């Protein structure tokens, strides 16, 4: 049994690790540079390159600024990540958590489609505007609830999802306009002049100085809210200020080179796991490690680039290196209780009788009827009956059936995961299963010029099982400790995501197929798929409520669960397996955008379903309603074009969830 005891290391380990990575990065860079230009010429090339010597020009305008940009970006993200994790008190917090990149991406996509001139004027300003706008929205919501970590993270997550979904929708509809943004999304630090360095250096320096000034008050913040305020720290202002700083740091980096997601999560985490516990140490070491890591990766990318026909985006490749490193360090993660639960009880009130399940059932039936009978044709709206219905039903009924079943499964999977991990932002996505399936589909596209559905399903299934096997293997070693599970899932997701993003960045026309699939479409559903899903879903949906009693007790924590005689290892294994299989089954048919799995459980709770059983049924019904409605809307709104159901679910679910977040402040 692993003991919940902090490893008695000193920060020496962290310093050593950061130093090792930095020196390795330096040596590799020097070797790489020496290959390009004899060291004797370095000085001249750096200051005054000879215009006739291409090697010197490359050294001056490409290699050097690229090296510096990589370091600056890694450092900026490392610092931002350390701030995020500290302020939000969540080891999973990263720039992505607050939707910074998603906001920047959305404004860039909108600009690319509707105002390309803006991108020419300043891509940076467009990106920062998006990032800041998103943060402002998140702060506006969070300020209603005293900037609690939970609200910030939850709002950030859903707003990020919303922006991401909207970006994908716009990209799907305007593919040709946005190919360059796929490169941006994969994060490339390639340079051809000094503009990025000139842009980043002063901004990040100022950010670093501000962070240094904040160290003392931030240290106090490590205490819980009550103690910190009793020590005279104005928590709200401090939290908002520190977050704004982290957001800006991220926005600068992102606007300059694109999305480099993993460093912000991994660098502070690695520093922490290797023994740096003091905030001060973490704030110094995280940027150094982050910078070193990114330089290292970028040098490796450049070295490998000569052997690849294809372009390797550094940001995406980073995850390939960072994720295994994080996985390796994970077992040392202290499974100390987080303060998540303290916030949650405020989110539900007693006395409100849950709306009867029959009411939800009624809503679901109404949604299904609407989705099946009401639709648009080239001649306008129509209510299909009789013969017309007979011709339309083979198209509509399987889609609605698949959306319904997938929504129900995701809703339940979300409840299982949120209760298992005691983390309200856990959703089926974090398991990394969706990405596993996506990778399977990607492989099908690579190995076959014309992948049929059977091949796609088979490889998707293989991907899901591969991820599941890895989760189980890691899980058994950590007795399925929730934090470990989440971080393993996130590391896996990042790893697989990197491969996907690289593929998209290449500009391969097949990418559009992948993009459509990733957006979560019921498009490919036919009767056989619907029956297959039905056969898988029904036993799972019936079996899951049998775990209700575990799900009630598990959120009380390990001690209380053990006290009450819950066999922790077995209970967690069963819950995780159920969640995984539910997720895999739904991801296979509607793609990896599992928003119903996040919003279903939350809405069920908000509507007064406090106990696990109620919440499971409620989340399943709500998930089903959401997906059916989303599928219908996706088919109707921009007819004859169609938006995937998973995407629309995010687009309609998010505003509703945010509205609830701002409302239930009492």
């Amino acid at each position, binding site marked *: 049994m692993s003991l919940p005891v902090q490893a008695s290391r000193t920060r020496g380990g962290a310093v050593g690790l950061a130093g090792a990575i930095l020196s390795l990065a330096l040596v590799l860079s020097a070797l790489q540079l020496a290959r390009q230009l004899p060291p004797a010429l370095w000085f001249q090339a750096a200051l005054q390159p000879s215009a006739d010597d291409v090697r010197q020009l490359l050294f001056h305008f490409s290699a050097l600024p690229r090296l510096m940009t990589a370091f600056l970006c890694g450092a900026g993200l490392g610092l931002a990540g350390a701030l995020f994790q500290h302020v939000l008190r969540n080891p999973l917090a990263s720039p992505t958590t607050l939707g910074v990149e998603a906001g920047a991406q959305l404004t860039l996509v909108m600009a690319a489609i509707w105002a390309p001139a803006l991108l020419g004027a300043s891509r940076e300003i467009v990106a920062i505007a998006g990032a800041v706008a998103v943060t402002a929205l998140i702060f506006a919501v969070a300020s209603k609830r005293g900037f609690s970590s939970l609200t910030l993270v939850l709002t950030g997550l859903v707003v990020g999802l919303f922006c991401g979904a909207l970006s994908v929708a716009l990209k799907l509809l305007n593919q040709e306009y946005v190919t360059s943004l796929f490169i941006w999304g994969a994060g490339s630090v390639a340079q051809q002049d000094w503009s990025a360095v000139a842009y980043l250096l002063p901004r990040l320096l100022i950010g670093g100085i501000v962070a240094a000034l904040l160290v003392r008050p931030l240290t106090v913040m490590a205490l819980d809210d009550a103690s910190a305020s009793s020590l005279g720290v104005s928590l709200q202002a401090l939290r908002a200020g520190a977050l704004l700083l982290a957001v800006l740091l991220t926005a600068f980096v992102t606007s300059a080179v694109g999305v480099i997601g993993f460093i912000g999560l991994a660098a502070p985490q690695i520093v922490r796991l290797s023994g740096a516990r003091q905030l001060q140490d973490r704030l110094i070491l995280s940027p150094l490690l982050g910078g070193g890591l990114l330089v290292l990766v970028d040098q490796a990318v450049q070295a490998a680039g000569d052997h690849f026909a294809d372009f390797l985006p550094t940001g995406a490749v980073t995850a390939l290196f960072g994720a295994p490193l994080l996985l390796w360090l994970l077992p040392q993660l202290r499974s100390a209780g987080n303060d998540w639960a303290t916030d949650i*009880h405020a989110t539900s009130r007693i006395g409100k009788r849950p709306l009867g399940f029959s009411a939800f059932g009624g809503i679901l039936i109404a949604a299904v009827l609407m989705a099946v009978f009401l639709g648009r044709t080239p001649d306008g709206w129509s209510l299909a009956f009789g013969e017309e219905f007979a011709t339309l039903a083979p198209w509509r009924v399987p889609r609605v059936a698949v959306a319904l079943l997938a929504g129900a499964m995701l809703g339940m999977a979300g409840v299982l995961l949120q209760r298992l991990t005691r983390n309200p932002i856990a959703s089926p996505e974090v398991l990394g299963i969706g990405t596993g399936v996506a990778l399977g589909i990607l492989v099908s596209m690579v190995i076959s010029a014309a992948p049929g559905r059977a091949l796609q399903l088979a490889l998707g299934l293989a991907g899901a099982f591969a991820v599941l096997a890895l989760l189980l293997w890691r899980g058994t070693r950590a007795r399925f400790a929730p934090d470990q599970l989440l971080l393993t899932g996130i590391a896996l997701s990042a790893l697989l995501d990197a491969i996907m993003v690289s593929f998209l960045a290449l500009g391969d026309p097949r990418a559009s197929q992948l993009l459509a699939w990733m957006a979560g479409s019921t498009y490919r559903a036919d009767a056989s798929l619907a029956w297959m899903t039905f056969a898988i879903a029904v036993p799972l949906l019936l079996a899951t409520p049998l775990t209700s009693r575990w799900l009630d007790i598990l959120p009380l924590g390990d001690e209380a669960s053990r006290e*009450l005689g819950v066999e922790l290892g077995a209970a967690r294994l069963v819950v995780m397996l159920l969640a995984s299989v539910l997720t895999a089954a739904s991801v296979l048919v509607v793609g990896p955008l599992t928003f119903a799995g996040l919003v279903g459980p939350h809405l069920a709770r908000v509507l007064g379903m406090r106990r696990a059983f109620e919440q499971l049924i409620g989340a399943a019904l709500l998930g089903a309603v959401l997906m059916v409605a989303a599928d219908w809307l996706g088919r109707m709104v921009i007819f004859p074009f169609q938006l995937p159901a998973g995407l629309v679910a995010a687009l309609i679910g998010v505003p509703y969830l945010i509205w609830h977040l701002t409302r239930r402040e009492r």
Partner: protein
Amino acid sequence: MNAPFRRRTAETFAGHSGGADAVLEMEGAHLSIEGHALLQPTSLAFGRGRVYGIIGHNGSGKSTLLKLLARQMPPSGGAIRFAGTPIQDFGARAFARHVAYLPQHTPVTTSLTVRELVRFGRYPWHGPLGRVSPEDHRHVAEAMSLAQVEPFADRLVDTLSGGERQRAWVAMLVAQNSGFILLDEPTSALDLAHQMEVLRLLRSLSRSRNLGVVAVLHDINMAARFCDELIALQKGAIRMRGTPGDIMHSDVLEMVYGIPMEVIRHPVTEAPIGFAR
């Protein structure tokens, strides 16, 4: 090892002999983590129908002792047995039917009412899938009545005051209907009146239900007043063990707490009262 088989035999066996005179005992059990000995090899036996108080200053190993007994951690060595069977041989629920444990920091209860929390105490009996029997309901009702939590049975636990919350958790333990209850500083968050209330409840349960109560207690006078036997720990080892009368001497207390102490008699009850000089 044929673990499932062993487990089954242990349960049947415990079912027969986990009765009124069953004993929770440790023999040479100790715990060290990364070279630090948190508890030296310790041998102790606890019987039913008595209240045991574990005293000692911070870091003396009190909580560790309790966690080992409650099977929250495995000992580094030595044996811990219930009714003669090593506790690790019990199934999770079987053990919970015999020994209940209240941690020092009760967890945050995510939107649970008091009644729902108390019902959790029946989990060891009905398990994840078993039917909730009338007997389960009876135990829940009785536990709530004993712990006097009925007035706020339908309020959220997290909205209660410290004393009410503590009583709700004790009610859950009572509903568990185990032979032993282990409590880690059950009174630390409570005001005087509530301390008295909880300890009085535990003592009367011990008498009326023949319950073995083992509690880590901070307040030496409370311990002396409500316990049948006190166990004093120091630096992870038992320093002294005996009735309150044996322990409540200035030299013994000085040894246990490491500061000069004095003991006087209560002017009315004649009970010994210890205080720092």
